[in-house]
């Protein structure tokens, strides 16, 4: 037993020495993601994307020179220091998220944190970072309450529900300018936390843009039949419908709309059900022209985003998705701030993050820029709107980023 402890001690010391030796030329960033459990796949995809981002920063990639730090190797203001990711699994569990954050900060001595997919994990983990005064950047958790708690060390790059809602309304306003009717809209949403909270922000955004909600329908996503709702929509004749739905209900809506021969002019699906590959296999043929959101678009051949997608596909065997892309973007923003700070001191990084002002051309995601407000939320966060053509969603809005002309009206099965 004594011998065993001795060996353990020696190993620990050895590890400690090894870490000490590399600390000078790497910048350690703690990452917490769900690597096991229900969302394990999403977490693994995100970590693979973060590793690609670190690789782009650490190696010279002159072909992606519009991204800050891509062209050269490492962080130039820190003597070419490399980014080192220290990844931990939070299992989708908020208290595990806290434990891992604590461990990464106190034992791994990371200079900043990034995470964490689940909103409820981000909510608790950021509290630890706040207590220890370590910047925590959030790439993908969208719950509104993560920012706005008076925290000084939380920064969030991703668009949140209010951004999406505003984008939908701006899109509809653009349709109006082209002479299409959009005055009356319908909001159809499932009745749990996700549906009701997004519907609430959509309602506010509609009011702000002077659009009238003629049908406000909440339903149970596990229900067996959606015919009454579709009959109601058919009767109220909204100019556009926004669905906030999960998979099986989104599929049922499309099938029932076809069965009851109801073809609205604009169908917008808020991610979730409409983004599930099963949705496209099941009803893609009868849901042609559905509009969805994504801040990620592969872009034209040879573009930076196209090259990133190529690197990512080579590593994982599948294309980059919106969630993983938003995490990559967060790491780029963080690295740019650390480089600008010219220091790994938390206060210096915090100050640099507060002064961050990135333009759309410097980003890989479809944000209008990155600039944090008092609460740490990116005020320029935005999303693309994508439309279903055949089996693929293609960016159609905003016009400057469109890869395909918007098809109006919704084609459905016709």
């Amino acid at each position: 037993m004594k011998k065993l402890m001795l060996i353990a001690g020696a190993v620990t010391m050895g590890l400690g020495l090894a870490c000490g030796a590399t600390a000078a030329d790497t910048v350690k960033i703690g990452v917490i993601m769900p690597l096991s459990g229900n969302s394990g796949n999403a977490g693994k995809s995100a970590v693979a994307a973060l590793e690609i981002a670190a690789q782009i920063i650490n190696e010279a990639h002159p072909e992606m020179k519009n991204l800050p730090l891509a062209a050269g190797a490492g962080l130039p203001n820190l003597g070419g220091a490399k980014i080192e990711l220290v990844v931990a699994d939070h299992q989708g569990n908020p208290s595990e998220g806290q434990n891992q954050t604590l461990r990464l900060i106190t034992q791994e001595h990371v200079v900043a944190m990034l995470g964490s997919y689940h909103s409820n994990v981000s909510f608790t983990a950021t509290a630890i970072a706040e207590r220890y005064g370590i910047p925590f950047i959030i790439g993908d958790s969208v719950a509104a309450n993560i920012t706005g708690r008076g925290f000084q060390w939380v920064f969030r790059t991703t668009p949140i529900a209010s951004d999406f809602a505003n984008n939908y309304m701006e899109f509809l306003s653009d349709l109006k300018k082209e002479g299409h009717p959009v005055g009356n809209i319908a909001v159809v949403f499932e009745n749990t936390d996700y549906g009701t909270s997004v519907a609430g922000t959509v309602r506010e955004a509609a009011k702000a843009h002077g659009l009238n909600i003629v049908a406000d329908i909440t339903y149970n996503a596990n229900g067996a039949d959606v015919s009454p709702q579709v009959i109601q929509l058919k009767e109220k004749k909204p100019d556009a419908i926004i669905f906030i739905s999960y998979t099986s209900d989104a599929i049922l809506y499309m099938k029932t709309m076809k069965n009851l021969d109801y073809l609205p002019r604009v169908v917008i699906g808020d991610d979730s059900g409409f983004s599930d590959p099963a949705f496209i296999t099941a009803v893609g043929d009868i849901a042609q022209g559905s509009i969805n959101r994504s801040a990620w678009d592969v872009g034209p051949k040879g573009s930076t985003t196209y090259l990133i997608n190529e690197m990512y596909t080579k590593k994982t065997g599948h294309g980059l998705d919106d969630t993983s892309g938003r995490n990559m973007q967060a790491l780029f923003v963080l690295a740019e701030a650390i480089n600008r700070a010219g220091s790994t001191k938390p206060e210096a990084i915090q100050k640099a993050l507060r002064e961050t002002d990135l333009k759309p051309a410097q980003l890989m995601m479809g944000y209008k820029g990155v600039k944090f407000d008092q609460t740490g939320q990116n005020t320029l966060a935005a999303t693309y709107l994508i439309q279903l053509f055949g089996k693929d969603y293609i960016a159609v809005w905003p016009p400057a980023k469109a890869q395909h002309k918007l098809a109006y009206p919704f084609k459905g099965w016709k």
Partner: protein
Amino acid sequence: MIFLQVIAGGLLIGAVYALFSAGLTLVWGMMNVINFAHGEFVMLGMYVAFWAYTLMHAGPAGFSALAAVLLFMLGVFVYLLLIRHVMRGPMLAQILSTFGLLLFLRYAAYWAFSANFVTLPEGLFGPSLNVGGILLSAPKLVGGVVALLLTLGIHLLLTRTAVGSQILAVAEDRQAAMLMGIRPDRMQALAWGLAGASAGIAGALIATFFPISPTVGESLALIAFVVVTLGGFGSVPGAMLAGLIVGLIESLSAYYFGPVYQDVFVYGLFVLILWVRPHGLLGKA
């Protein structure tokens, strides 16, 4: 016109509920056993239809028949291996054993088929039927007609044939039936087989318009228990009637008051009817 469309929609989904519930009420009525795994039987029927279509390009008649045969076998199998033994134990063991079967089948389906949704292609039964401006979904219409035929068939089998009389005799008094030369095990295995077969047909037909996943039983099973209780324990025509009533009330309340309130009306009526008629609409006292 809109009103008639809402009514038609309600009757169609009601017929689907009746179809779903036929097998459940059969087992309940014949053996006084609650089969909590009934929804999982239907789920397996859906997967049989999906795989028969995907691998063998079987048509609706083909995959429904296949689902009926396979689920008949499963029903017999479950009776012989599980139910027959727990029937000798306390009531609680019977309830928990079918509940265990539910979990086993659901998670086995997760393992075998993954949690992703799959679907049969749209329009296997052609476009909606237009009857004087009212659109009737073809798959639900077929489901409704089959539910009716199935209900009628089971009813005739139980009331007009020797086998049916034997099944009922066993249900009435196992000992007395044995003394009359009836083999109760064989009859009860047959009842489970029939229940399985009707669940299989129901699953295959529901799969033509409903997304398939291991948890699909959850969406439909609760309503099936309401339908069976409302119709009267063990009464197959009662389940038909109750299914239609529940579908109609759901549809009307969802249209006039909003879909989230439909359960208030359905369960309100449920309590009311049971208060007046504790044995259900067509159940025997």
